[in-house]
């Protein structure tokens, strides 16, 4: 199957007073129809920047795409003119954000805002667009949608605003939805409802989703594939089951051990990852994780590791997977054992 989105070698840099920051140093990923790719990492790892670059939302200057390719349904995105991009954005690919309030216009009713993409991208007339907008709000689980559509954003709760954003994003029936921390600002009971909603809409419509998140619980809930980013690079990429069952990068292992155990019957001490990520205005010569890594060898500090194949569709950027490296417990090995 052809991927909906395919990104190879994407690099993004920002000019700052302190020098050039290499925010994204290499992103490779692909998303198939009806599938969800989770891009996971902590603040500053480049996950949001990379996807903004795909959407053509990097302000330039100071930002610049310095390398790589991004294709949406086979069509190259990074060399399009702003006008060509405008025609694709909102129609073939749309994005929802952590803070829906800032993405909505406070002076227009909810219904008007959901109707707008329907008129713009699907050429519906006013009343048809309104009826369709109400139907979309209903589909995203807004009770009394007809009445709610006449209200303004400020009377909506955070969960209802995010449902509204999803309704707007789906209006043009995109083949790709990029969701940037869509539930991070929401309470856990509302988050669960929004995640269920995204999963069921994806099943109905077959769209591809890129989910940007820092929350491994959300990843486990929604993702089919996962790309773990650290210091601007994808350090591990795998099907979700393999990533959790046999993590291949020490950072992935570290993230999991820093979290409370998922099993209510188990309780082990939390293991913090010491230190902090590197400064990307002066990227490290070797592996960016080496200073925090319990397994780091001298080679790790000197030379950047390539991606090693660990299994079907499973890669990790770690020297420990070199044939001559010592075996480490807790890490996925090349032969599939762990």
């Amino acid at each position, binding site marked *: 199957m052809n991927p909906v989105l395919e990104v190879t070698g994407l690099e993004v840099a920002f000019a700052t007073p302190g020098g050039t920051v290499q925010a994204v140093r290499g992103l490779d990923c692909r998303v198939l129809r009806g599938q969800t790719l989770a891009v996971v990492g902590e603040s500053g790892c480049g996950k949001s920047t990379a996807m903004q670059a795909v959407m053509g939302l990097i302000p330039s200057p100071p930002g610049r795409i310095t390398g790589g390719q991004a294709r949406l349904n086979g069509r190259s995105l990074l060399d399009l003119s702003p006008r060509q991009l405008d025609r694709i954005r909102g129609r073939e690919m749309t994005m929802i954000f952590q803070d829906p309030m800032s993405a909505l216009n406070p002076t227009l009713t909810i219904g008007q805002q959901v109707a707008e993409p329907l008129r713009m991208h699907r050429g519906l007339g006013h009343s048809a667009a309104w009826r369709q907008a109400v139907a979309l709000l209903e589909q995203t689980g807004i*009770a009394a949608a007809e009445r709610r559509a006449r209200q303004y954003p400020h009377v909506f709760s955070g969960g209802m605003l995010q449902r509204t954003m999803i309704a707007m994003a789906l209006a043009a029936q995109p083949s790709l939805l990029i969701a940037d921390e869509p539930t991070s600002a929401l309470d856990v009971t509302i988050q669960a409802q929004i995640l269920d909603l995204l999963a069921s809409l994806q099943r109905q419509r077959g769209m591809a989703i890129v989910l940007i998140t820092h929350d491994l619980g959300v990843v486990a*809930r929604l993702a089919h594939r996962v790309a773990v980013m650290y210091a601007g690079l994808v350090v591990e990429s795998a099907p979700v089951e393999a990533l959790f069952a046999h993590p291949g990068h020490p950072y992935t292992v570290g993230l999991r051990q820093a979290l409370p155990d998922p099993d209510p019957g188990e309780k082990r001490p939390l293991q913090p*990852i010491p230190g902090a990520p590197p400064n990307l205005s002066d990227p490290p010569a070797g592996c960016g994780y080496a200073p925090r890594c319990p397994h780091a060898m001298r080679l790790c500090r000197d030379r950047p590791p390539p991606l090693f194949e660990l299994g079907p569709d499973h890669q990790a950027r770690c020297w420990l997977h070199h044939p001559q490296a010592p075996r480490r417990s807790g890490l996925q090995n090349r032969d599939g054992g762990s």
Partner: protein
Amino acid sequence: MLRVEQLRKSFRLGRGRTIQAVDGVSLTLASGEVLGLVGESGSGKSTLGRTIAGLLPRDGGQVFFEGQPLPRQYRTTDFRRLARAIQMVFQDPFGSLNPRATVLKILAEGLEAGGLRGREVLRREAAGWLERVGLAPEHLSRYPHEFSGGQRQRIGIARALAPRPRLLICDEPISALDVSVQAQIVTLLGTLRQSMGLTLLFIAHDLAMVRHVADRMAVMYRGGIVEIGPADAVFRTPLHPYTRLLIAANPLPDPVRERTRLPLPPVGDLADAGAPVPGCRFAGRCPEAAPACRQTPPPLREVTDGRWVGCWHHVTEPRR
């Protein structure tokens, strides 16, 4: 050590409307204990913490610290007098540190509140605190913006502990931090708690994390405590339908379990829950609500050893 009785706090919303943020909460904290206070936004957990710390005046009820009643509304002299009783760590390590003060100045204020005097003494003690929270003495001359979120939270903890309080109230101390840093801060709080013999009120929305930190856990909903008990027991076998909902809603970092999870019951949004009913505060969203639940509020009752639940389904005696 701390006894809170029937604490009430409301806020005016304008146009004559008020919201009862804390609605008659009673709880106790034993010396050396960690009590986790869990709830979603709007549950009143932060307001409760701030009211106990004296940052907000209370409308009603009593707070006793080591047997002594605390004032309803603090004056400046009360803050000084009680600096060695209760201190607070805040969620936002950006907003809670004076951006124009050096770390030395921030820590010196706390040390002075604890009764220390003299430039050299303050400097030496402040340097000691930085080391205790995992920073270095050379950080004393820097400003808050020069630190990462996790480092700022370390400074916030050092500031709060500098007067050597006996009770530390932590209001969502880790929710603004990255996962790897959250574990660092939780571990640090655990270490300091042991070495200083601190009592901790740990306010958070993440039940799994609270279970790691706390001896007991109290769950708040719409201004009231709905369940309280040993943290591990509450997490393993939640009794109140709201606690069960919170735990069921929390996605686990385990795809096998997540794939087989049942969808949540349609519990809606707090915004859809409507005005408070005369009965149980959770009845509007409760999947198990019976008609009687909407009429009389359930009492918080001890159902098994040390486990208290405010739910009519757990009251065996006849309803009034």
